[in-house]
């Protein structure tokens, strides 16, 4: 069950990153920082304005999207068409700058985010689970479903899919590529912020929490295949459960190694992801 809580948020992180990675061809090392930002924004919204918990979550997600859009417009838009290494270096710079900015604003001490759920767990036969965790899983699944609908059912989603498949043709068909990039980055960042806002109350918020989140998100993307939404969803859940099992059966010290091993193994054995159909030739 803990695996599911982690898995749901990993899936959110992974979906955001797989869209950015696949559509913009951008290795977004700052992805985890939007996750951190989500957690801290929830904390700030609760502490400063005294909003209620659910409103604070929404505020954090909205501000995450805004921050993403801003980054894309200011930093990435002028570099469009540059090599993948160039944009990657910019993202590494942004990652360092954001992380230390967060450290400056909120300090190095981990913050716990208050939440309104009772701490006594539900008990269902042999399983017992805290209500907060149920809320996290349900919200994560709802957000995943919403992203699916956005991508599959809306005009915007269709434009995004077209850009992913063939940028030039999509542009010729009148898709505003620039705006699609901004929206994609904002959307991906919002999902990362949502993951952070959801996991923040479960664990603690601290400035370097984004580093591991970035790596987990990358393992999910690789597990699921580039730009593959169902792949990222399943990949996130698999990673969450695999980590729980790894921590339980091998050693908790190596919990975070599971993600690394998955990245290496999948890239070497099936570089197009576990769920890719056999590639067409010709």
């Amino acid at each position: 069950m803990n695996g599911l809580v982690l898995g749901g948020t990993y899936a959110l992180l992974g979906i955001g990153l797989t869209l950015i990675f696949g559509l913009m061809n951008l290795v977004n090392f700052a992805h985890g920082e939007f996750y951190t930002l989500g957690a801290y924004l929830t904390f700030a919204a609760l502490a400063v304005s005294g909003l209620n918990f659910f409103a604070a979550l929404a505020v954090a997600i909205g501000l995450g999207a805004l921050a993403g859009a801003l980054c894309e417009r200011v930093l990435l838009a002028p570099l469009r068409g540059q090599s993948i290494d160039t944009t990657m270096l910019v993202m590494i710079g942004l990652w360092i700058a954001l992380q230390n900015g967060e450290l400056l604003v909120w300090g190095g001490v981990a913050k716990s985010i208050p939440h309104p759920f009772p701490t006594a767990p539900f008990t269902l036969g042999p399983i017992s689970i805290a209500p907060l965790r149920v809320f996290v899983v349900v919200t994560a699944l709802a957000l995943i479903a919403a992203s699916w609908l956005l991508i599959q059912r809306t005009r915007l989603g269709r434009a995004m899919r077209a850009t992913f498949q063939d940028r030039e043709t999509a542009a010729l068909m009148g898709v505003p590529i620039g705006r699609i990039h901004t929206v994609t980055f904002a959307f991906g960042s919002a999902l990362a912020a949502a993951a952070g806002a959801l996991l923040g109350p479960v664990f603690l918020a601290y400035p370097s929490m984004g580093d591991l989140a970035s790596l987990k998100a990358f393992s999910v993307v690789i597990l699921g295949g580039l730009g593959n939404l169902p792949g990222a969803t399943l990949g996130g859940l698999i990673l969450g459960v695999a980590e729980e099992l790894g921590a339980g059966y091998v050693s908790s010290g190596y919990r975070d190694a599971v993600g690394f091993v998955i990245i290496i193994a999948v890239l070497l054995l099936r570089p197009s992801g576990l769920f890719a159909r056999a590639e067409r030739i010709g």
Partner: protein
Amino acid sequence: MRAGGAVLAALALLTLPFWLGSPYHLHVAIMAGIFTILALSLNLLLGYTGQLSLGHAAFFGIGAYTSALLTLRLEWSFWLGLPAAALTAGLAGWAIGRLALKVRGAYFVLVTISFAGVISLVSVNWMDLTNGPLGLPGVPAPSLASLSLRTKPAYYYLVLIAAGAAYLVCHRLVSSRLGRAFLALRENEALAESVGVDPTHTLVLAAVVSAALAGVAGSLYAHYTRFVSPEVFLFSYTVTMVIMVVAGGKGTLLGPVVGALLFTVLPEALREAMAWQWQLLAYGVLLIVLVYFLPRGIVPAVSAWRR
């Protein structure tokens, strides 16, 4: 003019301990030398073959641990520990090169990061070998015959010689046939292959040399600070190397040297001026600014300006 500049620079480097009064300044100079080796090592991959390794701290750390463990546990001399560190790191580079160079670009970056992550977790968790997060204290300082190289000026010359040797190795390699094969692969892999360059073989070779150099730097670092802990695997070391190479000018020989000098001295200077969180923040911003304004680095920009 150029030769005159080189002679002046060499003279300045050789006499540095005599006119740098404080041991603190000499410490900065020693760290600059170690980072010069690291930047040269990363530049072989990033600058010449175009493959960005973000796991370079792993080779640095492997070198540091190899040398420290051999001298501490088996009481080897530093002069055997250093080549052993290069050898172990080179072997790791070979293994990772064989595995990771099947993929390119972003995927290669991810494999190297993951590799460094796994190695770092091993160093924390394998208590029997590495003493875990507590680290290995009391790494012996090297000595030459009966002369201990424990003093800062002596160690400075050791690092200076090592950095000079690393520069020469890179120089020889880059101006050889193999170096031209690196460049050909960077510019156009399919075309390079069509004229008979074996991409995997060539790139793995670059990875081995690069990793071995990083291992040498790790060994020098271990015997200088005389303490090794999992911190040697910190990602910030890798990031510092990348900044040095990119800022100095990737794909040039002098670029990493300039970058390493600048970015070891600059943070120390900044330390006076601002708190360390601001330092790192400024670092991140500086990296972004550099990509925008000096995309090819300082050395190429200066040589273009002089022409």
